[in-house]
């Protein structure tokens, strides 16, 4: 099982989808409607550039101190899916933007 998990984590950055209730999005909307939530998942090892290596090295030499820097590419949405509209439990319609990923990439 551990091997499996490890291998799964090594999967390159890709888009995945899940059916979730609107309430589960945690955005404060109360609705039982189910929507398709697409998210980005996977590693970005192949996307490491000289930038990342250099940054790591320079940070290691304590040349960059009290700053937050990220020396690894990150699997993030490159574009968001269309708006999602739904009816809440009080029979009001809502439309939410940029909830779901459309395209993923290492940035």
């Amino acid at each position, binding site marked *: 099982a551990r091997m499996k998990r490890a291998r799964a984590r090594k999967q390159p950055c890709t888009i995945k989808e899940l059916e979730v209730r609107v309430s589960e999005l945690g955005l404060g909307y109360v609705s039982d409607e189910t929507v398709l939530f697409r998210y980005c998942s996977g590693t970005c090892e192949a996307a490491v550039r000289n930038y990342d290596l250099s940054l790591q090295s320079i940070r290691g030499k304590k040349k960059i101190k009290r700053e937050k820097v990220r020396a690894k590419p990150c699997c993030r949405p490159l574009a968001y899916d269309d708006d999602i509209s739904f*009816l809440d439990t009080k029979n009001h319609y809502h439309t939410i933007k940029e909830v779901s990923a459309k395209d993923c990439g290492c940035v």
Partner: protein
Amino acid sequence: MKMLLTNHFPYSLLFLAQTSLTLSGSASASWPHTDCIQANEQCISDQICSSRLRTLRQCLAGRDRDVLLSSQECKTALEVLQESALYMCRCRRGMKKELQCLQVYWGIHAGLTDGDEFYESSPYEPVTSRLSDVFRLASINSGTEAANSKQNACLDAAKFCNVNDVCKKSRSTFISVCNTGDDALCARRKCHRSLRTFIERMPSNLTFPLLFCPCADKPCAERRRQTIVPSCSFNRPEVPNCLEVWATCRQDPMCRSRLADFITNCQSSSQSASGCVRDNYVACLGAYAGMIGYDVALNFLDSDPQSLAIGPWCSCSGSGDQESKCELYLKEFTQNRCLRNAIYAYGNGTDIVHKQSVPRPLFTTISPRTEKRHVLPDNQSDSNTLYEVNPDICDTIQGKKNDSSPHIRICVSESQLNADLTPDLRIDEKRSGIPRHRASMLSTLVALCLTTLF
């Protein structure tokens, strides 16, 4: 019985049976009809046809239309055109250049409707699919999730749309356009347009579940009522007069067509097992959906899951001396047996079962217009009404063509009329075409009549 059929077959009925058989044959052979755009082009390239068409347009455009139409020139033009493909042409819903097609159709038909303008026949090709087709598509599309929770079918319908990218996008579009927060400020026209796009572009296996989901409780029924965002697309600050709403609709070829399509495909019959003259639930549900995004649209009027109160957003108050007429028309929407049955059937997943039962006394040919005939003057020619029968008595009918032909008694028993699955039999309008099974049942009828006779 065979002997009787061949030897003593009454000519009038033989004629009748043959006519209907021919009709059904030619009707099914010629579908799909030429669309009106094609037919118009054909006519224009033909010299005789195009000149007659021009003449007829002038006849119809004049202010004294009736006077003009009775002139010899107009009569000849009409006679020629009635023989052409143009007169029989139809349009397909959602077709390319639908508006242009409908304009051609109404250009000829608008002025020529005999009798009541409200009961115009549909310019669209008849729908041949059945509920089972819609369900089959639905199960392919939604895979294993089809029968997930029976609790709130409307919630399931929303889910099926949400997990389909195209449906979700189109639904979100009309919801965001129609739901501006402040209902008084909603952009009704834009809302209507995006609703129509949704209904027209999405297959019925995605739209029907949202529109006609069966409900057992209030939250479900309220969700169903909310499907079209009624606060913007349906309700208006004032309640207009229905006659005015319908008259305005008739100014627009698209709206007029959708209204006529509903009137045609959801026409109720107290005789038919389905409750519909046309016996096709998908056609009725599709016609209901086709009116969405127009001012004549219907919607659920409350969130009572049992009542199934449906109607347009208008009333008959302010109709003046037309009030009784208005009420009568309004009932075609609010008390429509065909539509109700279609929605129930959709919820149950049961289509009409065409059961050809063991021969027993049966009832017969009621013209599709009979019900209205009692109340409204209808000076249509008798070509589509071969005879009328008072359904609960044995009636004597005399051959129309030949006075010397024998009298035929057609009997109807009352129990038959109440039986739920009584086969429905009628001579339909020429245009609608008669399904084969009806034609075959007609011969059964003839046989039975003969048994009662001899």
